[in-house]
């Protein structure tokens, strides 16, 4: 009996060991397969990035060597594509322990800049001496970055480097000497760009001046915290009423320094208001209510009327609605300013209406405060009929009106906004009212939520 029991115990233990071992082995195998798959994607990103840099260097060299603007336009647009690929590959590298932001910015601006130069030549303009110089400098830098990457690669040794050791790295864990030298290599690349890459000011969205934009619409004197509180209550229609609680007032230090105020109404679940009032001039920058409307009781037409009335009561009567989006039981309406019948798109205000009772639950005037100023608009040189003749022949024109539009570099242009259809799809084509150039095309996409522009 005793012997039998011992054998059974032994057998069970063995079974457990074998089973446990098998289970561990299986897990290990699965983990390793996942690691190799991850490694493959990192290796691809690294080697593709090297290829991108080599291509960028060649393409920029050819743009400098080409005597034909047609060819040069092709090379420069290829630079734009290849720079975007390089950005994406760099973004996939597990080098988060070193700061690669300048490299990312460099690649984005390189592509953006070449795109703008290509566009300029496509319009029949010649490159200026400064632009040739800039191109030559960018060309030289891509060569240096490529050389830097090759140097990193040669430091990897015959067996290469396993990037996943970066990705699975735990906080504060030491890197191996090889990994450290590779991290340092990337760090050096970024540092060199920080020291040497030029500040690029040009007409593209990634140009340095776009980020450093200052608000144009902030008028008035500095206000106190108490005044800000009054303005907030007034804006929400709570001034002189009872039954609300004001939280601590914070201060923000962004592009528009503001007082941040939270207001909670007592009683039923009416949500909490968060509202920012600018320190200069006491303008409401934005407002958000945390309430989630549970049902839709009012029509979209009525909701739109509520939004218009809300703005009119707050002295923004000249705004015209330019688009609506319905999301759940809420309707968000975009408004643009209007001067002498001209739509001013950069002066943008947005209002969200709760569809259960028509209350305004969100407001945003950041765009308006950044852009609004007294504009000196040029006289249109084209008539609406002339503008309509500039659009594609196959376009069936529905409506034409004057509008000021913001370009991607924040420059503003007075255009004829021609709305028309091509093969059943709707478009807005912007024809410069002074030069007659086609500046921009937006496609209007009808969705259940509303019309979106793409």
């Amino acid at each position, binding site marked *: 009996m005793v012997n039998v029991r011992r054998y059974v115990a032994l057998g069970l233990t063995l079974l457990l060991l074998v089973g446990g071992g098998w289970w561990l082995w299986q897990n290990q195998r699965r983990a390793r397969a996942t690691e190799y798959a991850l490694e493959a994607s990192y290796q691809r990103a690294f080697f593709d990035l090297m290829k991108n840099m080599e291509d960028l260097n060649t393409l920029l060299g050819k743009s400098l060597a080409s005597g034909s603007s047609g060819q040069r336009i092709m090379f420069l647009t290829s630079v734009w594509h290849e720079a975007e690929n390089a950005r994406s590959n760099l973004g996939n590298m597990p080098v988060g322990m070193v700061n690669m932001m300048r490299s990312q910015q460099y690649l984005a601006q390189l592509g953006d800049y070449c795109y703008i130069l290509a566009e300029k030549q496509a319009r029949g303009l010649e490159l200026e001496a400064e632009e040739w110089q800039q191109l030559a400098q960018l060309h030289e830098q891509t060569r240096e970055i490529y050389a830097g990457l090759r140097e990193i690669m040669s430091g990897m040794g015959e067996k290469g480097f396993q990037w996943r050791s970066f990705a699975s790295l735990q906080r504060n864990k030491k890197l191996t000497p090889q990994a450290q030298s590779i991290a340092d290599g990337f760090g050096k690349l970024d540092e060199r760009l920080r020291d040497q890459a030029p500040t690029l000011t040009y007409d593209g969205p990634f140009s340095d001046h776009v980020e450093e934009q200052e608000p144009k619409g902030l008028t008035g004197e500095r206000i106190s915290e108490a005044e800000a509180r009054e303005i907030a209550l007034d804006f929400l229609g709570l001034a002189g009423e009872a039954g609300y609680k004001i939280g601590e007032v*914070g201060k923000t230090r962004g592009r528009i320094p503001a007082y941040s105020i939270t207001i909670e109404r007592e009683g039923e679940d009416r949500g909490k208001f968060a509202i920012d009032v600018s320190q200069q001039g006491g303008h409401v920058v934005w407002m958000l209510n945390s309430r989630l409307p549970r049902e839709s009781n009012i029509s979209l037409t009525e909701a739109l009327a509520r939004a218009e009335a809300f703005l009119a009561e707050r002295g923004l009567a000249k705004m015209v609605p330019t688009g609506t989006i319905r999301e759940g039981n809420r309707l968000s309406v975009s408004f643009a300013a209007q001067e002498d019948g001209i739509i001013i798109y950069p002066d*943008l205000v947005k209002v*969200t209406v709760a569809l259960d009772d028509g209350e305004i639950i969100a407001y945003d005037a950041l765009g308006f405060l950044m852009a609004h100023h007294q504009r000196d608009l040029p006289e249109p040189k084209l008539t609406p009929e002339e503008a309509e003749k500039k659009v594609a022949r196959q376009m069936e024109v529905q409506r034409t009106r004057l509008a000021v539009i913001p370009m991607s570099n924040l420059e503003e242009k007075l255009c004829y906004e021609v709305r028309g259809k091509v093969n059943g799809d709707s478009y807005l084509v912007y024809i410069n009212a002074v030069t007659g150039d086609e500046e921009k095309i937006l496609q209007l996409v009808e969705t259940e939520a509303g019309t979106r522009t793409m």
Partner: protein
Amino acid sequence: MDGEKPRGSNQRLRLALAAALVVLVLAVGVYTRLQEGPYGGWEAETAYAPQVGEPNYDDIWLLARMVASEARGEPYEGQVAVAAVIVNRVRNPRFPGTVAGVLFEPWAFEPVLNGTFWSAHVTEEHIRAAEQALNGWDPSYGSLFFWNPGTATSPWIWTRRIITRIGGHVFGL
């Protein structure tokens, strides 16, 4: 003889009970698995179906998940601000040019590293916050970083210029 018959049926009864229990446990398991769906209850929670020509749908899906995993329990404006930081990064030359590129940049966000990004429970509030940010609301005033002052481990993050504090997060450039 008399005693055996009940014992036999007793055994059969026990066997049947055990089998029923196993079936029940399996059924509950399968049911909850089905309820969860591939991404932890998104389908069950909302009726937000993809629409043709809805360009922002994928971005909302990702942003709402980010809000759910990074800003759960934060005030609504704090949730909008977290989503707005992602949107700001997409527009900034220093970061990848798509929402997915920004979110899945290696080492960029804790929830993506530790998997809570996929298990987070997305509610209607998170979706609304994501939409509000995509529609242009930005309580962070163009911030590119946010961190929790209590748990932030990188000393580098404190070299950033602080723009505002909302709930438990600091937002900066």
